[in-house]
């Protein structure tokens, strides 16, 4: 079963962080990623550029509209993600708890754990259409 771990945190805090701390934080992320690659859970993952680089494409009255900015203005923003292969939700939660952003005290980071629709089921739904 695959789960997407969506890392939400306050990007302003990240921007304000001193370079030395940033370096240490990135190192922790590097080690964490290494560990889940080694354990066989890692499928994909990356940090995202800040929401100031985001563009939204949306449907409005039958047309597509391209606009500057993220999907929603919130206190926390989607800052990165991991795609992991786990035997069940508990394993995915255990991995989410190890993500450096939630381990950092006072970061206010939130990880959303979302299961993917399994391939076979997606294929069946597509075939039924």
């Amino acid at each position, binding site marked *: *079963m695959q789960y997407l771990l969506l890392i939400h945190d306050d990007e302003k805090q990240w921007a304000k962080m001193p370079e030395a701390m940033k370096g240490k934080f990135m190192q922790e992320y590097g080690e964490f990623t290494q560990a889940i690659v080694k354990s066989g859970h890692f499928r994909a993952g990356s940090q995202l550029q800040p929401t100031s680089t985001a563009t939204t494409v949306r449907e409005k009255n039958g047309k597509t509209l391209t606009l500057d900015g993220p999907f929603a203005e919130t206190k926390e923003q989607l800052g990165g993600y991991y795609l992991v292969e786990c*035997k*069940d*939700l*508990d394993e995915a*939660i*255990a991995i989410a708890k190890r993500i450096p952003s939630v381990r950092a005290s006072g970061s206010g980071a939130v990880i959303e*754990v979302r*299961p993917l629709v399994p391939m076979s089921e997606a294929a*069946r739904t597509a075939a039924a259409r």
Partner: protein
Amino acid sequence: MNLGDLHRREYGRILASLIRTVGDFDLAEDSLQDAFEAALAQWPAEGPSQNPVAWLIATARHKAVDRLRRRVLAEGKRDQIARLLEPQEDTPVPLDSLRLIFTCCHPALSPEAQVALTLRTVCGLETEAIARAFVVPVPTLSQRLVRAKAKIKGARIPYEVPEDDVLADRLDTVLAVVYLVFNEGYSASFGADLLRADLCTEAIRLGRLLTELLPAEREPKGLLALMLLHDARRDTRTGDDGEFVLLEDQDRSRWDRAKIAEGAALVQEALRARPPGNHAVQAAIAALHAQAPTAGETDWPQIAALYGVLASIYPSPVVELNRAVAIAMADGPEHGLALLQNIDLPGYHLLPAARADLLRRLGRRDEAASAYREALALVTNDAERRYLERRLREVTGCPRRVGATR
């Protein structure tokens, strides 16, 4: 045992075992329903089976195979059928009940869903009964159950007892659900709503199950003790007209001695944990109240000390409030009153109510009256409102000699 009793007593155990073998909540529930219907049709004519539980499990398993066969062409569930047709021991395994409880009380489910799912599956209560006990429309509760089961399946919440490293955390969630069920039944047990009493009984049953299945854990014992000690006093908490009766005024001869003895013995075991758990300490306090021959002989210094322990492991303004009241009883109202000044509990009627009672006992009637009014503006429970109104009348009515009140 008739089929109704069997359903009541064994439903959760049988379902727990079926969920493991068929690997699917809905399929297990539907097949068990089929099996009970089959029993209803066959047993009156043929007589019940020698081992009704095994019969129900075996029948439900076959019904599950039938149901899966019907789905096979559409979805290709051959593996699942093959697994179900392997010979199996048709007796409930205690571990399955524990798996079911931990799955129902998984923190990834909302607290409302945890409670509903536990009562529906582990206790086998009907959806309608749960809805009525929690004063929720039946469709809302059904929706809650459907959504929870869909999440268990979709997000693959495991059907397992958690690993040791998270067991304590997960057990806390389970105990919170059990205590919530108990409190829902206990705190609103005014009137004759038997469903409410049912909730207390179910919570105590769950507590017993947890102490049996996790014999090395202290907190389930603490919680079971706490529930038994409260439940022992249930009938004396309200008077003939449904009015609220204070602990000190309750008829102690009507307390359930067997429950108190059982609770007190469990407290001893639960308190052996270091540090002691939250439920164990609360149960120890309840035991001191329950074992005092008269209200006047209550060991208030010991109770105050236990609230101090509780505040250190589980800091909360409500605990501080109780500690202040215990100190007032042990050392005099003025000591408690001083502690109350520092407690911040906005909107909570018991804080001004406690202040009012201490002021009344100090003979400061005007201040007491204004504190009673403050409490009355916040109280929501009718029985408690009547109690506060009676006290307010006392302090504003014809003056008595100072010192005559208590």
